[in-house]
């Protein structure tokens, strides 16, 4: 009898919890009806993060109960910090999202971003990761890790601004891999760097494999053999057309002799695996966070979204909210020594 009563009690409790949660979810769903979600893109219009933000603004609403509208607001400045700060300090109502490059979190380790605690953001998932490669002009003789370390003349590698991945990746090659490189910095993104490679102004670039394939200049140079992929740096799985080629390349992690440098690189390459995260304001009500996370996961599984993104040249290595959060925040779990080493490598 007692057991029977206990079972009935438990069933009643489950029913009450289910009812309360259904009411709460329905409330949250009602919340989104007629509302507008703003996706802040902290970079200028026309770039890959802007295009992905627009794609998500187009597809996410149909996976959110209440089908809200969604718009993109470009807030460039200070390497993305101005846009990120606007979402970080926004009302925690689930209407402000941001899409940014995950290696930005390293700047909070290096002191570049002081007023944003990345651990407090509401992580929603990552729509893509990058597999970084080292591409070299074929007129250079170097092909192996030993060649890169002992190159007779420094290999000129294109680089962008100091906080760009296009600068951070070659810094790892130079400082952790001890490659004989000379960084030619100042290119405003990958497109001018690709043109510089065609002009023989730089010998190499260290970038995402997908960028090599999307940019016309490097795609053609890769096709006609003017450039060769010579090293796999790691991150997310490489894009399909490059999979076999990348699998046969030497791995950058094998070029790093110092164990602390290797740990620092492994943590950093984890960020590359979740390099296109979406996040919302900290302190979101749990049910709204759940709706956004589920909406994002459903959108990432939507065949129409996947096809459209792929047609636009994106490589979708999607991660759900938890996977993205764990990968991105893992840099904060590194020992103090490794964090220091990471800072030194990226300085």
């Amino acid at each position, binding site marked *: 009898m007692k057991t029977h009563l206990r079972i009935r009690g438990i069933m009643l409790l489950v029913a009450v919890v289910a009812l309360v949660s259904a009411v709460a979810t329905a409330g949250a769903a009602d919340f989104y009806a007629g509302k507008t979600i703003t996706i802040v893109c902290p970079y200028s219009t*026309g770039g890959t993060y802007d295009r992905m933000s*627009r794609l998500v*603004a187009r597809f996410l609403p149909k996976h959110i109960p209440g089908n809200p509208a969604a718009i993109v607001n470009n807030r460039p400045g200070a390497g993305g910090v101005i846009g990120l700060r606007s979402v970080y300090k926004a009302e925690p109502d689930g209407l402000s999202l941001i899409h940014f490059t995950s290696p930005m979190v390293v700047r909070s380790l290096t002191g570049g971003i002081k007023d944003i605690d990345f651990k407090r953001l509401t992580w929603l998932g990552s729509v893509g990761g990058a597999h970084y490669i080292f591409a070299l002009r074929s007129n250079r003789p170097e092909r192996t890790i030993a060649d890169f370390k002992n190159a007779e003349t420094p290999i000129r590698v294109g680089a962008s601004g*100091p906080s760009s991945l296009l600068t951070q990746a070659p810094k790892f090659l130079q400082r952790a891999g001890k490659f004989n490189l000379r960084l030619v910095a100042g290119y405003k993104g990958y497109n001018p760097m690709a043109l510089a490679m065609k002009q023989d102004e730089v010998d190499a670039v260290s970038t995402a494999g997908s960028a090599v394939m*999307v940019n016309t200049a490097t795609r053609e140079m890769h096709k006609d053999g003017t450039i060769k992929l010579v090293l796999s740096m790691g991150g997310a799985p490489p894009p399909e057309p490059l999979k076999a080629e990348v699998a046969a390349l030497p791995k950058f992690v094998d070029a790093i002799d110092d164990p602390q440098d290797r740990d620092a690189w492994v943590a950093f390459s984890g960020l590359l695996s979740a390099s296109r995260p979406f996040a919302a304001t900290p302190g979101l009500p749990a049910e709204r966070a759940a709706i956004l996370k589920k909406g994002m996961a459903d959108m990432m599984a939507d065949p129409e979204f996947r096809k459209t993104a792929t047609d636009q040249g994106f490589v979708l290595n999607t991660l759900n909210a938890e996977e993205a959060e764990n990968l991105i925040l893992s840099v904060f779990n590194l020992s103090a020594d490794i964090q220091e080493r990471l800072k030194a490598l990226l300085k």
Partner: protein
Amino acid sequence: MALEAFHEALGITFTLPVFGGMLLGLALGLVFGAVPGLNAVLGIVLLLPFVWTLSPFVAFAIMLSLVSAVHTSNTFPAFFFNVPGSPSAAATILDGYPMARNGDAARGLTAAFAVSAVGGIIGALVLLVALPALQPVVLAFAAPERFMLVVLGILMISFLSGTKPVKGLLAGAMGLWLGTVGQDPQLGVARFTFDSDYLLDGLHTVPIIMGLFALPEVVSLAMRGSIAERTHVDMGEGFWPGIRACIANRWLVARSAVVGVVGGAIPGIGGTAAAFYAYGMAVQGAGAAERERFGKGEIKGVIAPESANNASAGGELVPLLAFGVPGGATSAILLAAFLILGINPGPEMLGEKLSLSFSMVIVLVLSNLLATGVCIVITRPAARIAFLRSNLLIPALLLFVLFGSYVAYPHPLTLVLTLAFGVLGYFMMRLDWARAPLLVGFILGPLAENNLAISLASYGVAFLVRPIPLVCMAVMALVVFVAVRRGMGRT
């Protein structure tokens, strides 16, 4: 195959959706050009969310006609308010505004619009004929060549300074210094930012132009009563003299269009700088007596930059279509539109997508002609603005200036910056300091710095002995020699 593709493009361009799209883009572009602060980039950004719903032919018809129309109608505010409708018309204000003050707006505007059409068409035709031929030109201009070209541009400051070369050079130096504000592009060191995130990306061009040129005119307008100093002028006398001026200066129009195409085609140079180059060349090529008239309402000072800035639209498409590398801010958005539509610009634009390339050229030609036609028709009523009372104009002008600055970079400090440059511009005007050299220094300074750093890192000092830099240095030596000889001749 090319002929077939051309016929196909012609047929598609004259279908209702594409032609209608072109007219829509034209209407939007005329507004975005004429309202200070709105510009082609902003216009096509607003269209970007809808691009995926359209066919590539319709999408590019709207976007390219918008860009052409902006390059044409941005002349109106340059003439009437001493403020360019968009940065590419910045060089037009040097003689456009004085023409309006002289009551000569109708002639100047007619000439400006006519050469805009010619420049735009030359740009489109060069794109059509020389796309394969221009690829080597784009490739030949690496960082050392761009650096030398920019230094040549900075030398031009002496031509923008009227009869006060020392003041002009000092203003140019101030512009170069203002261009260093923000994060150093190589090392990331913050310069003159005072720990402000706003300044980390440097000062922004639009608030500087608005403050430096437009705000002082508001004060001056309040004192004068109306833009034009003459109280009456026959509007009918402007049209044919304007057309005749274009015909008389046909070689200047053609030269400036070539400068515009090449400037647009070299990534990082762009239409604004090209317009200043064309202006500098016009001054350089003028006789001694004529040179004195530049800055005071000389029609050649309007013809040269207007031809160049419209031609640059076609030029900007060359690196975009050939290499997928945008030549400037406008083509960066066009690249996004290409990718959103699933098209990778590159060799296929000359192969399987040839009809789309042809359609883009046809749209550029048509929209330049139509924009010019519309602008010429409204020139006579618009020229009456020059005779309106200042109490009607000042509130509208102030609104446009502050709104335009804020739209360009939405931040409260933008308004502070605009007002600060307004004060600076006012004192420069009162003390007879040319303001154009400051703007040219500000625009070209960061380009020079970045290209010099890349050149040194990549080639070492050997970059100086590459062929194009050597030619540029020879031209610079010649320019300095001629300027010094002229100076000695005067004394």
